[in-house]
């Protein structure tokens, strides 16, 4: 068989590939990425792999401790709560509310915020200011408070939380993207592209966007951890997702009155929440470090 790779050919990696190589060389970053990937996979596969339905009650097996306890049963790996619902299934299904919805919110806010921010960055004068400061008023109110106001008007429900959090995250994206675009647009290579006769759309999507992906990725990880914590906080306060939905914050709130009798009801959802937010933050931080390293080396 002819060997097509006769000579060793060294190919210098592309800038994005370089970031990935730097990221990979950090074991913490990689384990955080695997952890986050695992949680996401569990969330998607919850209906298939979870042993029971989230709200299925086993009335003869209430407050069963986790399986590693002497009284625990292997069939109910994380034990059951005071109504006899399987904790493992509830946590897996709960990931949909506590991680799935934040991801959707961040995607939505990210797309709208990036579009408006890019528009503000590419234009000048009044138009740019209008786009840039369109939703600034929302920045002055903390996200939780704004959510509370919207919920006070519309009533507590998941939809209202989604609306409130999207509204809070959009201006953050606008500002981050607008500043990044504004920093790039006066650089020589953008002027050179302009002098090449490129269309504005081409300059934005092919010349500037590849150079600000890092900013967008950083902002996304930040926004994601904010959204997760806010949804959980509102659920804990009883203003967001309503029971019996297995949202992690709601589960924490419900477990408060039995914390001495069955502590696992509080520890397990809390641990899930902690792991998710922690892995996202570690990924964000390592990504920033990887990007800085690439910039330093080039």
């Amino acid at each position, binding site marked *: 068989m002819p060997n097509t790779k006769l000579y060793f050919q060294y190919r210098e990696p592309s800038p994005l590939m370089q970031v990935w190589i730097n990221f990979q060389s950090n074991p913490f970053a990689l384990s955080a990425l695997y952890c986050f990937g695992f949680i996401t996979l569990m969330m998607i596969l919850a209906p298939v792999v979870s042993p029971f339905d989230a709200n299925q009650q086993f009335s003869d097996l209430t407050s069963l401790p986790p399986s590693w306890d002497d009284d625990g049963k292997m069939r109910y790996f994380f034990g059951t709560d005071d109504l006899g619902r399987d904790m493992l299934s509830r946590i897996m299904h709960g990931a949909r509310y506590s991680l799935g919805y934040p991801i959707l919110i961040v995607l939505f806010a990210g797309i709208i915020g990036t579009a408006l921010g890019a528009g503000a960055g590419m234009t000048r004068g009044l138009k740019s200011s209008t786009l840039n400061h369109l939703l600034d008023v929302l920045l002055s109110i903390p996200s939780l408070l704004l959510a509370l106001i919207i919920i006070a008007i519309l009533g507590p429900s998941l939809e209202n939380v989604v609306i409130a959090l999207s509204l809070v995250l959009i201006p953050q994206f606008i500002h981050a993207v607008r500043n990044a675009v504004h920093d790039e647009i006066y650089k020589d290579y953008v002027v050179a592209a302009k002098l090449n*006769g490129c269309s504005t759309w081409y300059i934005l999507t092919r010349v500037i966007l590849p150079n600000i992906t890092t900013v967008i990725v950083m902002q996304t990880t930040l926004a994601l951890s904010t959204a997760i914590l806010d949804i959980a906080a509102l659920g804990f306060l009883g203003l967001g997702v309503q029971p019996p939905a297995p949202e992690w914050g709601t589960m924490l709130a419900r477990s408060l009155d039995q914390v001495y009798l069955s502590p696992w009801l509080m520890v397990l959802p809390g641990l899930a929440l902690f792991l998710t937010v922690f892995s996202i933050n570690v990924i964000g931080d390592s990504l920033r470090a990887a990007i800085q390293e690439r910039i330093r080396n080039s």
Partner: protein
Amino acid sequence: MSCLLEVKGLYKNYIHKSGWLPGKRVCALEPISFTLAKGESLAVMGETGSGKTTLAKLIAGAEPPSGGEILLNGERLETGNYRQRCRHIRMIFQDSLGSLNPQTTVGQQLLESLKFNTDLSNQEQVDRVNETLMKVGLLPDHFFFYPHMLSSGQQQRVCIARAIVINPQIIVADEALVGLDPSVRAQIINLLLDLQQDMGISFIFISHSPEIVKHVADKILIMHRGKMIEFGKTSELIKNPTEHVTELLLQSGIIKNQL
């Protein structure tokens, strides 16, 4: 020789604005007029801050002028119409790495101007880019390189390739040779002169070095504090400079002694 480029009363003011008060007007370039013939090289010299770079940017279209007009073959170049301008006038920036997009391959960046200004097919565009890379002494393999993988001399060559890829009539080089070591600089100058011979390009180049100017330029334009103070043939200016600044810039005394 026919007149290719005609600059008439071109000037540029910058307005430094602070707060709500009407800004302070700073004149970067006072009205300037000159002409350039086909295949001719014009050197622009002057001290730092004398408006050389402003002039280059105005001619290349990187900045809008405050007034005056630029005529190319008798046709007026409109401000902000990059398509019209870039077919004829191209610019080589001072900072070659800074003027190349770090996230895109060299080939893609050379394709840009062809994509937007010609109706060649994709294959023809790629062929043209490879041909241009060969012309500036690079290899077609460099198509797939990212700018940070090249040495500074090679980056400068890529910038030249980008300027000549759509066969312009005028190239504006803004201190394009400053950061290079002497041997590479000589290579690049010879490259530019060869290209000028082959393609009949006119050059406007900004330089501090009297040796290069003397070697390359047909005409010299001396700027001082935003004004054009002298404009004439290289040999005449070197022999009989009328202004003291010219004499200093060209170091005429030294050169005359050497002759």
